């Protein structure tokens, strides 16, 4: 195998360290997160004080990263955290990428959870406990008190005598010691890595072309395959002719992959696989296949007609999910009523690396290497698809060339495993860009209708929000036709604004494609609708949008999320509200920060405008101001975006900044150019020429990231930058042109050029 991650070139001097064997001695006791064993005896081999940490007799420290790297920096962050508490030398640490294994706990790299939901403290505890044991070993060696010694970058030092011993000399004794109780963590002032900017762990390999992604994985003797997937969700191969395909030099077999019945969950869509001696032969062979597809209930899916269906759905009363006060009565009695409908289309993840996997099936065992966000789900799904025991499925995780939610779903790894079993050889399945855009798990389409009442002073007294949007649950279970509470907890049910009468209803929206989560999930359309509507209300009230948002947020306090009038409890990204409250002070602070830093309120030339939005997601608070310039033909340029993020504490501040920089542009792609549409059940777009994402010249000229250090509990980072940017852009376009953007993408809606800015508007 050549797919084991190569160490960074600049630590090549430690050649003797090599790659540490993953095998561990039976019976080794490990420190689990918050459950520390009290004793363990001397054992041969590496010391493994935690499932995430091993220290070899020669002092080599190996950290296991159990989460998938897709650009968010987890492989860097988790090594930093462990190295800091352990007082190991960051530059010499070995990194092992964990296979899918329940011993690591949750490995689903999703929901911006890797740092916030446990790993940070697990890694700190493991590192600190091992460090204390090494210190105690040194103290015993020297016959001094443990409090008189301190670990420092791979050695333990006795300052009074100037003596020091490297970890290598202490491992044998340390491992026999009882695990310290309590484990004493560093004070933040003692951090040498956490909270500092450290070069990315994989940086050198990326810059020299050595980094191994799923598309690069290989096994000796492997075959290459591409799959012709059904063009319509639910369709199956009716008949086919493979003769021409088989004539392509290098094509060896054409194999039908059985498609799972709808709802197909994470299982393959089915289709025809072309197995060949090279990727190109497989691609060429696929072009020559002649297939007749069977009928599907989704054959008539048409995005234009479906939008009309969603509009009709949202214009009638739906199912009540939140009912606070009397929204209907308050709307009727309001001094001023405002209503608007917002549409956000399906989106494709389109990570630069299309999905890929290589698998080798031997008997009832399967070994696979793949770019997956979720190795445990990959293991379990392969086992289910092949009907083999999941204990016999080993899933190795490569680097991911982007994920954005797509690579949480292991259908492509199942294809590779299936084809390996059918051919008796290792098989690499390569998804082409067309497969990725046309046969993925598109982000949901959403139509939202909002109505609000303002009193004479411009205060919001009534709010009615209807959502018609196919739910992700539709890919797992039948008859799922309404946006779910968990999706509504992404911005709708947890909406922070102080409104006494609120009603939220979900309206019927049956799915006609697979639906999957996409970076920040339903926050994308829901933040768009709510934050654009807030801007409309600000203008209706004759208020400055920032002042209006601050007034609607109300005074600094923690919201009681049990008294919102929801039918079911409001979700909080898997966290407890007591630990991660909906904190108005933090909303206000990011909003005030971004307003100040962006120069909000300054006079701009005609055709330019600024828009603002604030949104909490994944336990992190983000506000954004977009400065837009709309040219005479409606062409949009973006001189500047400001984004302020309060994620509690930034473990790797520069990576938090880069995640924000990327989130800004991904959100602008969502807003300006990206749209996945269907006609006759098939996706219209196929590649980057017609599924457009922003390029360098369209990106903001300046992006200013402002990290707000609240010291609050840790929030997510990868996703929460996305939601507020698109609505801030739409609001900026209104400020610049007087035209409301209520439907995404902006596309050519401004092609008529800017209209006159209405009197009283900014």
């Amino acid at each position: 195998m050549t797919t084991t991650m190569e160490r960074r070139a600049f630590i090549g001097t430690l050649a003797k360290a090599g790659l540490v064997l993953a095998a561990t001695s039976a019976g080794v006791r490990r420190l689990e997160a918050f459950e520390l064993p009290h004793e363990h005896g001397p054992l041969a081999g590496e010391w493994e004080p935690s499932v995430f940490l091993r220290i070899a007799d020669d002092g080599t420290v190996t950290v296991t990263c159990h989460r998938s790297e897709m650009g968010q920096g987890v492989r860097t962050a988790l090594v930093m955290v462990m190295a800091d508490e352990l007082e190991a030398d960051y530059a010499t640490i070995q990194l092992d990428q964990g296979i899918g294994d329940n011993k690591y706990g949750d490995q689903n790299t999703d929901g911006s959870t890797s740092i916030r939901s446990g790993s940070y403290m697990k890694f700190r505890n493991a590192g600190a406990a091992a460090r204390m044991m090494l210190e105690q070993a040194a103290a015993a060696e020297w016959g001094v008190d443990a409090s008189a010694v301190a670990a420092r970058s791979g050695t333990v030092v006795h300052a009074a005598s100037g003596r020091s011993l490297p970890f290598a000399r202490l491992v044998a004794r340390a491992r026999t010691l009882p695990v310290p109780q309590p484990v004493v963590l560093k004070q933040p002032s003692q951090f040498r890595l956490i909270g500092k900017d450290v070069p990315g762990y994989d940086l050198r390999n990326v810059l020299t072309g050595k980094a191994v992604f799923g598309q690069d994985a290989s096994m000796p003797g492997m075959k290459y395959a591409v799959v012709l997937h059904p063009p319509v969700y639910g369709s199956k191969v009716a008949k086919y002719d493979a003769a021409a395909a088989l004539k392509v030099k290098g094509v060896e077999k054409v194999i039908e992959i059985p498609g799972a019945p709808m709802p197909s969950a994470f299982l393959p869509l089915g289709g025809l696989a072309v197995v060949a001696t090279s990727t190109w032969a497989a691609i060429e062979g696929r072009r020559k296949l002649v297939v007749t597809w069977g009928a599907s209930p989704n054959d008539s899916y048409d995005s234009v007609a479906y939008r009309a269906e969603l509009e009709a759905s949202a214009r009638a009363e739906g199912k009540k999910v939140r009912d606070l006060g009397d929204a209907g009565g308050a709307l009727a009695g309001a001094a001023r009523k405002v209503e608007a409908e917002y549409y956000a289309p399906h989106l494709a993840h389109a990570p630069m690396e299309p999905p890929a996997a290589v698998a080798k099936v031997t008997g009832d065992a399967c070994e696979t290497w793949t770019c997956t966000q979720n190795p445990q789900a990959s293991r379990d799904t392969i086992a289910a698809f092949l009907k083999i025991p999941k204990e016999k499925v080993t899933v190795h995780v490569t680097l991911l060339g982007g994920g954005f939610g797509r690579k949480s779903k292991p259908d492509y790894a199942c294809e590779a495993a299936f084809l390996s079993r059918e051919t008796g050889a290792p098989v690499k399945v390569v998804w082409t860009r067309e497969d990725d855009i046309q046969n993925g798990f598109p982000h949901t389409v959403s139509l939202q209708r909002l109505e609000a009442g303002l009193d004479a002073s411009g205060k919001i007294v009534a709010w009615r929000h209807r959502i018609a949007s196919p739910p992700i649950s539709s890919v797992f279970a039948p008859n799922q036709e309404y946006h779910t509470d968990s999706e509504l907890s992404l911005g709708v049910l947890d909406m922070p604004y102080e409104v006494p009468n609120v009603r939220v209803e979900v309206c019927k929206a049956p799915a006609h494609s697979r639906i999957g989560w996409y970076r920040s999930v339903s926050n994308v359309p829901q933040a768009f609708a709510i934050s654009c509507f807030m801007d409309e209300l600000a203008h209706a009230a004759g208020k400055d949008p920032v002042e209006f948002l601050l007034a609607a947020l109300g005074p600094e306090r923690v919201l009681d999320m049990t008294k919102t009038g929801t039918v079911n409890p409001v979700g909080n990204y898997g966290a407890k509200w007591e630990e991660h409250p909906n904190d108005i002070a933090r909303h206000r602070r990011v909003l005030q920060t971004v307003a100040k830093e962006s120069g909000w309120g300054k006079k701009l030339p005609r055709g330019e405008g600024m828009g603002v939005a604030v949104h909490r997601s994944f336990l992190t608070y983000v506000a954004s101001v977009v400065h837009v310039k709309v040219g005479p033909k409606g062409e949009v340029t973006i001189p500047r975006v400001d984004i302020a993020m309060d994620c509690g504490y930034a473990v790797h501040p520069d990576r938090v900044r880069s995640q924000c920089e990327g989130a800004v542009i991904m959100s602008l792609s969502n807003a300006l150019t990206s749209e996945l549409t269907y006609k006759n059940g098939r996706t219209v777009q196929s590649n980057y020429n017609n599924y457009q994402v922003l390029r360098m010249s369209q990106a903001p000229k300046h992006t200013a990231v402002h990290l707000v250090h609240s010291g609050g509990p840790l929030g997510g980072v990868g996703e929460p930058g996305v939601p507020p940017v698109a609505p801030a852009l739409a609001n900026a376009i209104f400020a610049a042109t007087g035209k409301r953007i209520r439907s995404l993408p902006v596309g050519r809606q401004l092609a008529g050029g800017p209209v006159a800015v209405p009197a009283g508007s900014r």
Partner: protein
Amino acid sequence: MPSVSFKVNGQRVNVDVPADIPLLWVLRDQLNLKGTKYGCGVGQCGACTVHVKGVPVRSCSTLATSVAGQDVITIEGLSADGTHPVQRAWEELDVPQCGYCQAGQLMTAAALLAANKKPTDADINAAMEGNICRCATYRRIRGAIHRAAELAAAGPSRAGSGAPRDRED
């Protein structure tokens, strides 16, 4: 099946290829040079960018037979030790996120700097327009190109090294 001979990173290679195979798949599947990435297959994203005679080309849309007798440089051969000015600048600014598109970005940027020692933002936009980064590291790429121009100017031995160097086999 035609046989094609060309130089990759200074090494002469001779491979049997189908007449219509793009250079990308020869590099990746036959020559095991996997630093050059597949992103779209239709010349839209730039992930597969390599230099042919010093000019950046999309290897997914370049017939392998068309590079016969020519010098091809891939990311593996951009520099002997990873110290080309663009690599150093990319490292300083910690440009990559997922990293998948960065080989193509680096190759396009290196060719730009070989032709234009002090590119403006507009020059950079024009040169980099064909390279998509879905993580959207554009801000840092732009900054790193400016920085690489400074590094190249400061180190005359490396100035303009974006062009393939003469390496005789």
